[in-house]
């Protein structure tokens, strides 16, 4: 047992830190640290900086242009990027569709899509959920009918994250209706510019537009944009869901947010004294600090064992449940820290170039919105209830 990082891991951390310090634009990190609104361009700027260095796809094997890092190195990289206030590398291309293409795609798909994902040329989004199919994804209804060398796609997807910016969408579609619902699903790559694709943004409870509805009306998709075999898409989707354990716990980001919370508690005043001197509030912070430490070490245990086990494990579910709960608690406490200054809603203040007067200090404006927004973490990518069902089946055999 050794809880310390090895000398080479520490050296790796230093190298990452030095690079991030030298290359992350200050205005960009300021936006992230202050929870300001990020544009498409903001995500892409950082993506391209990392791409130039060969670091954008931490989990990819070297043959496709990944850096060939161990899971622990990937974690250290995540942590350094998060601490510095780098925007997240959006998972849809790099972490979701790319591994599926690598494992099941044709040579032509690999040759065409993977370099474009690396370079950031294509923005990808995930088209799984439908209005009637959320947790019960296998019940999806969007149909793809074969006509010669094309599919004709009709249906509706929803809750599509940042699809308003996307060039490509990877979709689960129904190609057969007989047999078990899981057996008639195929995995299609669809160009968002194809005629018949319509995107409508959905306003979320925090007032921002981060998710979309996507309609397909007689959309013509070449058969060679199907990944793997027809009707085998469910297998690929499951592969994708269980593939990625690094980063699911969000430890790096939560560590950064914990520091931010402490910073706010030092600045805020209660009865004229720094809020952090209020033992009751400090206990709340300490409690989360302890829970986060437990999550961090659990995460590291899972990562250092990765590779010794194959396929999706219940560990990912444990990390997802606790990771989302901790992110939610942190955002809640941060909003609570500013007391009644969580109440104002100054929408313009979420823009980085807002020059107007702030209400309640420069950090207060986004906090309630972040708390509202964080409710999503226990719903998306498999709700916490579904994760618990997985744990109960796979670990407990119930």
């Amino acid at each position: 047992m050794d809880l310390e990082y090895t000398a080479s891991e520490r050296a790796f951390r230093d190298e990452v830190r030095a690079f991030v310090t030298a290359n992350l634009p200050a205005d960009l990190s300021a936006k992230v640290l202050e929870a300001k609104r990020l544009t498409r361009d903001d995500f892409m700027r950082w993506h391209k900086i990392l791409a130039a260095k060969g670091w954008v796809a931490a989990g990819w094997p070297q043959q496709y242009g990944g850096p060939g890092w161990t899971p622990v190195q990937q974690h250290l990289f995540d942590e350094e990027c998060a601490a510095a206030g780098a925007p997240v590398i959006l998972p849809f291309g790099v972490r979701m569709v790319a591994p599926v293409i690598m494992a099941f795609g044709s040579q032509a798909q690999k040759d065409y899509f993977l370099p474009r994902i690396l370079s950031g040329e294509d923005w990808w989004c995930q088209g799984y959920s439908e209005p009637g199919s959320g947790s019960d994804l296998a019940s999806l209804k969007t149909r793809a009918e074969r006509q010669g060398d094309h599919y004709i796609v009709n249906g509706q997807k929803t809750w599509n994250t940042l699809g308003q910016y996307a060039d490509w969408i990877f979709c689960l579609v129904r190609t057969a209706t007989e047999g078990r619902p899981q057996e008639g699903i195929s995995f299609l790559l669809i160009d968002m510019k194809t005629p018949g694709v319509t995107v409508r943004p959905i306003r979320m409870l925090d007032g921002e537009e981060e998710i979309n509805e996507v309609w397909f009306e007689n959309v013509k998709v070449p058969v060679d944009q199907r990944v793997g075999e027809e009707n085998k898409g469910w297998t690929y989707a499951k592969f994708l869901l269980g593939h990625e354990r690094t980063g699911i716990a969000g430890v790096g980001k939560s560590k950064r947010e914990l520091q931010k919370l402490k910073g706010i508690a030092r600045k805020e005043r209660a009865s004229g004294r720094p809020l952090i001197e209020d033992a009751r509030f400090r206990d709340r912070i300490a409690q989360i600090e302890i829970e986060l430490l437990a999550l961090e070490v659990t995460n590291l245990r899972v990562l250092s064992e990765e590779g010794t086990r194959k396929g999706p494990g219940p560990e990912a579910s444990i990390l997802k449940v606790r990771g989302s709960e901790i992110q939610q608690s942190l955002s809640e406490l941060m909003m609570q820290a500013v007391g009644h200054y969580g109440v104002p809603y100054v929408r313009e203040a979420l823009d980085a170039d807002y020059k107007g007067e702030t209400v309640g200090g420069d950090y207060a404006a986004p906090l309630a919105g972040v708390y509202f927004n964080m409710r999503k973490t226990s719903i998306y990518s498999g709700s916490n209830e579904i994760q618990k069902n997985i744990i109960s089946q796979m670990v407990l055999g119930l």
Partner: protein
Amino acid sequence: MDFSLAEERRLLQDSISRYLGREYAFDARRKHAASPEGFSREAWNQFAELGLLGLTISDADGGMGGTPFDTMIVMEAFGRALVVEPYVATVVLGAGILSDAGSPAQKEQWLPAVATGEKLLAFAHSEAAARYDTRHVEARAKKDGAGWKLDGAKAVVLNGGSADALIVSARTSGDAGDERGISLFLVDPKAKGVTVRAYPTQDGSRAADVKLNGVAVGADALIGHADDALPVIERALDRGCAALCAEALGVIDALNAATLEYLKTRKQFGQPIGRFQALQHRMVEMTIRAVEARSMAIVAASGITQTDARERSRLVSAAKAYVGQCSRFVGQQAIQLHGAIGVTDELIVSHWFKRLTMINATFGDADHHLARVSDLMLSERE
């Protein structure tokens, strides 16, 4: 003991529900909230006609002489409908303070006008460095001839942007945390030296930050006695808390009803999601909290009628703390059980959730009121 509603209260409840059901659907509410003032003067006039604005003002001052239980009925219905009109600011806080401590002339000038809906009030007390500490007042009022000169800044004043008069707390003696030395003044928001920065709030209502820069007021602006306003302030805020507990209760019930309905209709895996025991027990917990929250809203309303200020505060804080905890649980679970549709702006569910969150942040959150109950324990006699 009698927990049944008196006949007049049932009538009151019916008439409010009928009015809100007819005129205050979610779309109408959205429109009110998005209007320049952030609420509807027309709805406000209707409230006046229904007798809601003078409900707790005495008969002598043009009101109906109602009790905190009447306020509870109103606020519960307002919670369900997500009413954005400045009821707490004007009626519960403003008219409450003037009824308690105003001079006959002040009462005559303001209370009948509040009851008829002509005038709006706001209570400018809290300050940035105070957090929720009611005694922490840094704003100052200095004697200036016969009148006073006010300097200072007030934070998140509910409906401060629409008020015809601000009731401002300021220190006439002592230091920031002292019990004595605080006084209350009626201030015209258009007076020289007053800056009101109004803004929307997260839940679609309005608030304002107020700056006072050498604002001159006459001797007649002082409410009650100089240096001795803390008991008046605490009573007003306790009343505000009790009203918010009732409002939260309305929201909690509405959220539970909507969530229950959703559990029965939303199908996944070939069955209504309400068939999953994991969700059934959650819904049961939410129901238990709603029942308890109702008990605590009653505790708060009855607490207000206590003559012993400490006992009043203890009861109200116990209620605000517990209703806050129940609100947090019910709000978060209601969103969770709705899945992604619950985090959209389209569905009223997310707005109820936001309102509950903001109620908790107003006049002291659950932790603050828990601390207040806990601290009072130290001075209990054996």
